[in-house]
């Protein structure tokens, strides 16, 4: 029996070998799979705040991003604010969009599908009577999120649909949005 290495020309810029290797390694050392993600926020004034992310914990030790990332958030002028940053709910959409898109690239790489372009638009509905406390039957958060992808890739329409479905199945932010999570907020 001879072994042949199949040269793959598909390159979506995702190091899939490293990801699959990690999955195998973590099966033997599940404690290394425990991560802690962190952010710090400082109120600047009005509804404007600045959140930074840098350190996180994982694979048994502390890590730093290559540089500190900063997210400015504010409310828009229709809320009588100064609109000095994205609204927090838009940051949630950004999180979902980037998580699903990263997943599509990774799954495409595993499935040997070359991507040429991937774009999506996201829209979330919200009844603001919830956050205004005007109607206790209305929830604060989104009443639904609609994501619409446009993907140009060397694959059939069904294979592209399967990419998008699989990326939802493996997405952290999709899970965070679709399932309840215990949130504990304390004053130190």
């Amino acid at each position, binding site marked *: 029996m001879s072994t042949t290495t199949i040269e793959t020309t598909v390159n979506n810029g995702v190091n899939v070998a490293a990801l699959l290797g990690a999955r195998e390694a973590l099966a033997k050392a599940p404690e290394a799979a425990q991560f802690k993600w962190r952010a710090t926020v400082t109120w600047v004034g009005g509804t404007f705040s600045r959140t930074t992310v840098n350190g996180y914990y994982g694979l048994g030790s502390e890590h730093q991003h290559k540089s500190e990332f900063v997210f400015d958030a504010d409310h828009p002028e229709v809320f009588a604010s100064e609109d000095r940053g994205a609204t927090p709910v838009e940051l949630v959409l950004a999180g979902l969009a980037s998580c699903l898109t990263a997943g599509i690239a990774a799954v495409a790489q595993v499935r040997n599908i070359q991507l040429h372009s991937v774009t999506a638009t996201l829209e979330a509905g919200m009844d603001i009577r919830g956050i205004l406390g005007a109607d206790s039957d209305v929830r604060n958060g989104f009443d*639904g999120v609609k994501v619409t992808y446009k993907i140009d890739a060397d694959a059939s329409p*069904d294979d592209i649909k399967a990419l998008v*479905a699989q990326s*939802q199945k493996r997405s952290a932010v*999709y899970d965070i949005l*679709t*399932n309840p999570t215990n949130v504990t907020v304390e004053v130190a």
Partner: protein
Amino acid sequence: MRTTTVIIGAGQAGLAMSWWLAERSIDHVVLERGEVANSWRTERWDSLRLLTPNWQSRLPGHRYQGDDPDGFRTMPETIAFIERYATSIGAPVRAGTTVTSVRHIADGYEVVTSQGTWQCNTVVLATGACNIPHLPAVAKAVPPGIDTLTPIQYRNPQQLAEGGVLVVGASASGTQIADELQRSGRSVTLAVGEHVRVPRTYRGRDIQWWMDASGVLDQPYDEVDDIVRARNVASLQLAGYPDRRMIDLNSLTAIGVKLVGRLAGINDGKAQFSGSLRNVCALADLKMHRLLDTIDAWVATQGGDLAIEPPRRYDPTSIEASPPLLLDFARRSVKTIIWATGFRPDFSWLDVPVVDAKGNVRHDGGVVTESPGLYVMGMPYLRRRNSTLIDGVGDDARDLSAHLAAYLGNRRQTTRAAAHAVGV
């Protein structure tokens, strides 16, 4: 008491192994806590029929001879079938014998039972993959006053308290129980996670016929890309209804079952469902059509007229615009939860350290390599896709009994060589 091989469990797997050991002249007993086909007798609901057609219950030395090859056996018929098989092959079954411990001894294993202790060289674990219902962690949060049942305890709709029912899980058990309860007049909500949608018949033949003929069911475990994933795939949404109708989420919606997402939490007397329903259905639709593509492609390579009908594709699973995310048990008068969330094997009596954190025996195609002379059968994708079907245990028993016979042969040679070396 002493024998060469102890088989634990007198279901289809243990009996198929007994046939092969007899064929290879290996002395053995089959220990059974109840009677032959015990799980089929005591752990199935009244209306259940086998999910595989009659022809697809081939066992070593047995082929279906009846006049209804495409029918589905009821439970009494299934029990009678396995009983007849046990008798016809003269399997040395010790009924009413509960195994309480299996452990290593110097020259093999000691099997402690309610009817005495056996010493043997080799042991075959044939107690099956479905001994203990697997409940999700959220089961602990069920509010007081709600009855809970597993498919092992469920018998029929009359057994349930008045009121609505939440069925959790949409594989073979969950969908069939939801169908039966809704038709009995109950208001059923079905919580749907990942599932496997397939038509009962396709192009005029049973789906099992296609998977069998095209080799899908025979695909060996060591040729699968991701065997861990393959071993964790949920059971097919199938039912053995005499009219061969398809059961899927669309058929359940059509009779009034309410579909919701995976049960994600229970809080404050309310069940919370995942917002992922649309995606798990999209995944199931895509995978079903991929299977049908495989069948069509195979038909095209075969020539002739295997397919009785032309190819077709099914409507996507229909989901309402905004499926509910909450269910208030009190307000909706839901009085019963049925956990159709899968099963785990029970190896609590196995005192050999080969069981992983999830309760499964570590094995390589049924050979427990960490403990020579120990074998396991009936686990999902043990050696091939049909390892959990009645139809699949015969091939597994043939392969594993060959390994077992070789092991015994080598062992004897080693013992003889050792005796020779010390000048005996």
